[in-house]
């Protein structure tokens, strides 16, 4: 285990070097892209146009080596796609309900796959009858209202009084959760991801050969995979983020709060595993109001601060200036980060991500059989129904 962590640290320091070297290059590329797209955006004055114009280029040449490089995205068409949905505004308790429903669905599908396996049915992937839909994984991407949440470790009386204090001080809600990790903040401007994934090949149709060889994606590898996804997203914005001995994604630099802090967290992780199905996930600060973090010792690390894409790059200011008055650019900017996260998520998981609200887009369909496509579409429909039922 120690060796594993050391390997990751080595990879990350290499990564930082790469990133620093390419920051200026990325920013220059951004500025070029902005100049050409700004006119388009200004003409239409719509946030969609600005967001479309605001996609950072793929950092191909500066791509850091990652433990996930051996996964080949070219083969993604042979694996089940993952459905994703972006929800711009989700109350925390509704988010919990939604995750619970999706986890239950996924666990039930694994049980079914298990049964068909023991009954001698060879193909776990596509069974017969209406109950044997493809076990498609789901990722929710969203923004919460201001809310503090406590992890499993700090549940209980002291956590409740801390919740009361925070509510009085900031007006933000407080929830206890079953995820790993300690205390954190979610709110507008932060992109939260809840991947509901089966970390096992049992009914986990679609994992690559490499993952099959691992038997399942061990929990610790899943956490590291999320870290690397966020590092890659930060790199696309020219931010030299890395992993440290503390879980999460960090950017070197002095804190806004105290001079003592030498690294600030841009991306946080907290996972709950139920029968090998993941819930909760990651939170990436894009334009988060970081003053909420000043009220807490986030993740139990008193000498560390928080940061965001907006704080780390000048690009954010350019973005703001492009938007018409009266919009809430902080939250709208998160929508510009969504496709970047989707892209990097596809790379670390070596699976195609399909937007549930735009599954007609044909890019993910190439290389799949008509029968597979039909089965996948049916699964998407089930997931859409489930989300609708839970949300409204």
């Amino acid at each position, binding site marked *: 285990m120690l060796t594993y962590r050391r390997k990751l640290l080595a990879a990350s320091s290499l990564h930082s070097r790469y990133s620093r070297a390419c920051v200026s290059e990325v920013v220059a590329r951004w500025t070029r892209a902005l100049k050409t797209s700004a006119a388009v955006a200004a003409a239409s004055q719509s946030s969609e146009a600005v967001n479309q114009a605001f996609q950072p280029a793929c950092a191909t040449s500066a791509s850091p080596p990652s433990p996930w490089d051996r996964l080949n995205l070219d083969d993604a068409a042979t694996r089940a796609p993952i459905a994703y949905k972006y929800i711009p505004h989700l109350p925390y308790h509704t988010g919990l309900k939604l995750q619970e429903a999706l986890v239950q669905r996924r666990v039930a599908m694994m049980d079914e796959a298990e049964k068909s396996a023991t009954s001698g049915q060879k193909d776990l992937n596509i069974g017969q009858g209406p109950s044997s839909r493809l076990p498609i994984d789901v990722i929710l991407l969203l923004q919460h209202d201001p809310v503090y949440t406590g992890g*499993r470790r700090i549940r209980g009386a002291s956590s409740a009084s801390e919740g009361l204090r925070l509510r009085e001080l900031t007006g933000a809600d407080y929830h206890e959760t079953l995820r790993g990790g300690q205390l954190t903040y979610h709110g507008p401007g932060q992109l939260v991801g809840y991947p509901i994934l089966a970390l096992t090949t049992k009914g986990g149709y679609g994992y690559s050969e490499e993952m099959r060889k691992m038997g399942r994606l061990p929990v610790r590898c899943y956490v590291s995979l999320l870290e690397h996804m966020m590092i890659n997203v930060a790199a696309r914005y020219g931010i030299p983020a890395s992993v440290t001995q503390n879980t999460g994604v960090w950017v070197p630099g002095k804190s806004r709060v105290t001079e003592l802090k030498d690294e600030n967290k841009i991306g946080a992780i907290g996972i*709950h*595993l139920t029968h090998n199905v993941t819930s909760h996930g990651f939170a990436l600060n894009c334009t988060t109001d970081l003053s909420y973090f000043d009220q807490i010792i986030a993740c139990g690390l008193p000498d560390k601060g928080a940061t965001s894409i907006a704080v780390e790059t000048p690009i954010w200011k350019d973005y703001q200036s492009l938007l018409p008055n009266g919009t809430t650019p902080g939250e709208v900017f998160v929508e510009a980060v969504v496709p970047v996260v989707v892209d990097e998520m596809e790379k670390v998981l070596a699976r195609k991500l399909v937007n549930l609200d735009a599954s007609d887009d044909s890019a993910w369909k190439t290389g799949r059989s008509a029968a597979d496509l039909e089965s996948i579409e049916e699964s998407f429909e089930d997931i859409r129904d489930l989300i609708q039922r839970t949300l409204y």
Partner: protein
Amino acid sequence: MTNLLCPPSTYPHHSVPLARRYTKEHEWVSVDGAVGTVGISDYAQQALGDVVFVELPEVGKEVEKGSQVAAVESVKAASDIYAPVTGKVVEANEELAKNPTWINESPYEKGWICKIQLSNPAEFETLLNEESYKVHVEESAH
């Protein structure tokens, strides 16, 4: 009696007198009389990574086979642990709560999680024995 050449973490069968049975979700149970001692397997602790927190069940709690009985947290991930047998929790390993790394260092001895008074001792026989569990682990690893 620890054999220095074969530390318990590598060769657990050298120092564990009671036969263990396993679930497919990698919990183990060994039975002494009608009381089963429960923990998670060496494979499970490796998959989890360094354990930082163990959530123990309350003594007196009635659990059903397959229902959630405890949780372990490693690298920001809390994993539910399920009861391998039906019965009543008669003891929880309070020392483990203070030393969560025992799950990694000694999954079959110091890392035991709780003891369950079996209400249906026949359940034990339906679990995987050492060989079939080994096959299960190998199968999921290839």
